[in-house]
């Protein structure tokens, strides 16, 4: 087990390294005059040249990457070109907001999809068909449309929730919950729909197994068998999908944060992207990569705990 985790961590490290090399190369080789871009059209050529030297742009790319990597390994991702803030602190201050959205959406979609998926599989009939139809909407519609719909319905018309903005939990827990309710709802739709499909299918598969009949023949109530045995079998594949959905949720927050004006990683990323703030973008890419590797690892370990047949190799 330990060896497996170590091996996976190593593979993940290689993956993050590869991602950083590729994105570093792409960003600096894109041909844009970075120093000119930062200083604007009014700067003189001398100023631009001085800026380029200051940023190390005159050095060859591998040496620049080496410097970046060496600092990154020591926890230093450099300074943002636009704000002058360190990349790590910019990420840190916003990570809490984004992660609370992503974690909230993960929990909401996990709970909802178990309830919906099991009900659809066990009950079948019109309920199942209705859920299938609704889930098609959830799969087809882009997240920002769902977010726009929720804003206009529940914020602009019904005034149940604020349309935009984010309240710190330290200020008011109630307002904090209200401020993240709609974003979490918008984020959860896609993940819930996918997970529900997965769980429905896995429960259907489980219900067709002969051991279900045998457990029933021993006097166990059907409901108990579904919840304790069938669902346990369904949890493995569902967890894999949840892992994928988690990655999707990180991407989803980028748009959702824009709709709801929430100061998270997503907003930071959009700003960095528009301004061509390469150190910040690099930091975002690497941080996301590390997060993805860790989530995948957690999914695999949980998989092992859930299903005794999974051989970690």
């Amino acid at each position, binding site marked *: 087990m330990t060896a497996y985790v170590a091996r996976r961590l190593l593979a993940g490290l290689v993956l993050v390294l590869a991602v950083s090399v590729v994105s570093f190369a792409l960003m600096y080789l894109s041909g844009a005059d970075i120093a000119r871009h930062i200083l604007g059209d009014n700067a003189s050529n001398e100023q631009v040249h001085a800026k380029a030297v200051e940023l190390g742009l005159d050095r060859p790319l591998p040496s620049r990457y080496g410097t970046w990597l060496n600092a990154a390994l020591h926890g230093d991702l450099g300074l943002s070109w636009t704000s002058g803030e360190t990349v790590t602190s910019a990420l840190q201050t916003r990570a809490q907001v984004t992660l609370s959205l992503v974690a909230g959406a993960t929990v909401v979609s996990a709970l909802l999809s178990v309830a919906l998926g099991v009900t659809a599989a066990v009950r079948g009939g019109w309920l199942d068909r209705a859920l299938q139809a609704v889930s098609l909407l959830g799969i087809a*519609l882009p997240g920002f449309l769902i977010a726009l719909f929720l804003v206009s319905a529940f914020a602009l018309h019904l005034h149940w929730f604020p349309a935009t903005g984010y309240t710190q939990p330290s200020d008011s827990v109630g307002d904090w919950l209200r401020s993240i309710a709609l974003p979490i709802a918008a984020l959860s739709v896609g993940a819930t729909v996918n997970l529900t499909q997965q769980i429905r299918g896995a429960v259907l598969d489980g219900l067709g197994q002969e051991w279900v009949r045998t457990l029933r023949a021993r006097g166990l109530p059907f409901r108990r068998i579904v919840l304790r045995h069938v669902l346990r079998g369904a949890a493995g594949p569902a967890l894999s999908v949840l892992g994928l959905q988690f990655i999707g949720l990180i991407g989803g927050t980028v748009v959702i944060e824009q709709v709801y004006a929430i100061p998270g990683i997503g907003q930071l990323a959009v700003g960095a992207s528009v301004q061509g703030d390469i150190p910040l973008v690099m930091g975002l890419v690497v941080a996301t990569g590390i997060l993805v590797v860790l989530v995948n690892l957690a999914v695999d370990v949980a998989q092992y705990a859930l299903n005794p047949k999974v051989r970690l190799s």
Partner: protein
Amino acid sequence: MTAPRARRRTRLFRAPSVAVPAAVLLLVILSALLASALTSADPNRADVNNLLAGPGHGHLLGTDAAGRDILSRLLHAGRASLYGAALALITAAVLGVVGGLWAGFHRRAVRLALTWIVELLMALPGIVVLLAARAAIGPSLIAAMLVLGVLAAPAFFRVVAASVAALREELFVDAARVNGLSDRRILWRHILPLVRGPILIQAAMVGAVAISIQAGLDFLGLGDPTVPTWGTMLSDAFTTMGQHPLPVLWPSLMIALVCLSLALLANALRDEFGLGGRAGALASAEPSIVPENDGADPASPAEPAGPAGPADPADLADRAPAPVTGDPDPADTLLTIRGLRVGYQAGATVRDVVHGVDLTIRRGEIHGLVGESGAGKTQTAFALLGLLGHGGRVTGGTVEFDGTELTEAAEHDLVKLRGVRIGYIPQEPGVNLSPTATVGSQLCEPLRVRLGLSRAEARDRVLALLRRVGLTDPERVFASYPHQISGGMAQRVLIAGAVSCDPELLVADEPTTALDVTVQAEVLDLLRDLQAERAMTVVLVTHNLGVVADLCDRVSVMRHGRLVETGPVADVFGAPRAPYTRELLAAVLDDAPVRGPLDPVAPAGGRPTTEIGGTV
């Protein structure tokens, strides 16, 4: 070759589930292409006196915050949006299909390298990569869509590589090679027809994703502001959404329309190509449950278990000697089945698999239920447990267990009966234990739920039971998962489970069929001993006449869902009345398969013994 393909294509587009979304898409595409002809308004001309006007006044859908005609912008924006999505789609399809074919056809090294690249591409959320690309390249619809195409290529790569790999397994590619076909010919003739369906489905899905991501990027303000797209329209209108929701509505509707049509199309294609996995059978109206196969006794609707119509003369001839032996004293009777009929829902109709079975089981006897596969033995057993497969139900008759009518009983009454009063041993040990729970925990569960034992009491009792059924290391088996024990051990575990709550009646459904011959004998001995020491009544479903002769007191012979003959084993085997019983016995004695009509040669009187070892 061409004709059937063309026919298939016409049929495909005649299905409304394909035709309707395809027509909607076509309309949207045409409206974008013909934008200039459809509306005379300039999409970029700002009418400063007419900002955010409602519908009317020369602007069918009103104007936006800059006073531009919304309808004209909507139609013109369709061009860039659809063009961008098409660019991404084509990039993804070309890269993915070519890469997939390459990986499928070539050596391991190539496959591994490509698979690793695919994993790399899928490691990061697509939008993060697009943001990074935007930072490097600047606002460009073409660049963004090319990057998106690369990111979406794995969707095609995976289905194609998997299909090609599966084809190779099937060997016919190798066979074709031996026959001298070139790779290219194999590709066109054999592989592309097979992956065409999956590719089309992926194309529809990637198209929807491309439209939505393209709009998302523009909505975030990352796109080229000079090119009107549905996304930039949304972005413009979003700022004034509180007061003027309509300008947001129109581009939203277009995006939703296109995405929904593509998703519906993907779904319909999946159904049309018969690729609808159960988990993904989105729009299929049928509740998708596959009728189950009852192991070696497939009396399921898939295989007609006998003539469903009026009984044919042969059957009537079989039944001619009415089921023998008068009913015993009711006090001796534990189970009485009268006229039991079992049917399975097959589409709109119900297909009967058991056509009126009468059975009387006396207290303390071992009663054999024999007949060939599909005779309805197992379905009869399931019916009395109230555990028929999906779509199955009792369509007539009664099952009376110790004075209680079971066919009418509610599930919560049956639950109290099962395990505690009626036990069940299944036939396939390998698939009858819950794979995710330890053997011990699933044996303890009924004891705790039904008998209310404490955890420790249940554990002690289960360990004693495991020892009783002949497992030498009960502690180890208790802690094992089902896949860690052998089939023989699993069958002993299942027997332990069946008797754990001391049932009066034990239904054993071919308990030894799946086991080795040596283990069979041991398990039968165990059953006999358990029956004797617990004074259980046993219904033994089997097709093995030797087992019946060895173990049973009385026997009932079934065929085609009907009872043919019943009585004490010695009588039935010694002087069979029904021609079918004679056939069965003769087949065993001759050690030959059942033949057509033959001379009824009754074995010499007396109880046949275990020498009747064959099966029918």
